[in-house]
């Protein structure tokens, strides 16, 4: 199946935006992906082998976290898997004032 790699992780896939990896389940696909591109493993998984909390994985348009079978979800070669790190942020709760100009 095709796996779409986000910009920051392409350094570990020789620049490839999309890589093709075999596998009957999501877990198998990840095993094969990190076997083919070993440096991805540290980027995607914690030392305990869990997907890092900020790494989102979508099977087509479905969030892996909400699929009943999770990593055991079966996939077809025509399915697409997308790895997408989260994006969030915001300010701290310190109001600006006249003595602290917006820098």
């Amino acid at each position, binding site marked *: 199946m095709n796996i*779409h790699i*986000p*910009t920051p992780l392409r350094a570990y896939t020789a620049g490839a935006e999309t890589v093709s990896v075999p596998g009957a389940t999501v877990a198998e696909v990840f095993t094969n992906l990190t076997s083919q591109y070993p440096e991805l493993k*540290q980027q995607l998984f914690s030392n305990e082998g869990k997907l890092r909390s900020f790494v989102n994985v979508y099977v087509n348009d479905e969030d892996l976290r909400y699929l009943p079978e999770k990593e055991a979800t079966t996939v077809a070669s025509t399915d697409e898997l997308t790895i997408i790190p989260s*994006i*969030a942020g*915001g*300010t*701290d709760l310190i109001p600006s004032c006249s003595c602290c100009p917006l820098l």
Partner: protein
Amino acid sequence: MLHIDYTHYEALRAHGEETYPHECCGVLLGKSNADGNHVREIVRAGNTRTDSAHNRYNIAPIELVKIQRQARGLGLDIVGFYHSHPDHPAQWSPTDFAEAHWIGCSYVITAVEKGKSAITNSFLLTGTSEEDKKFSDQPIEIEVQPVSISTNG
């Protein structure tokens, strides 16, 4: 260096004014090369943090998936993100840093003061992993397209 044309630069600043007093957010599409990130398109995104939109933003992952798909269709990459800081400085916050995971991408922040865009800064997330990532100040080069002027007579 972040390279962005004037139209896109003004568009992302206007977005922050429109959503004031809430934070806006969006994605920068373009290309990266040795001299920096070059923005070719900006995509507005929804802020899912309706519980605290005045000081938090979050882009839904499925929206990011679709934006990445859009970028792929255009032959572009996600090269950065932007958001606003209503009545706060255009500096990254501890929350911004903790939630930044796109190494190599630009994080553009616009301070919106009483509804008007003030300073816009860009920060490049550098490093090799979560453990050694850091934000670096990134100069912004605003590119102005040449205008052709025709005259009659």
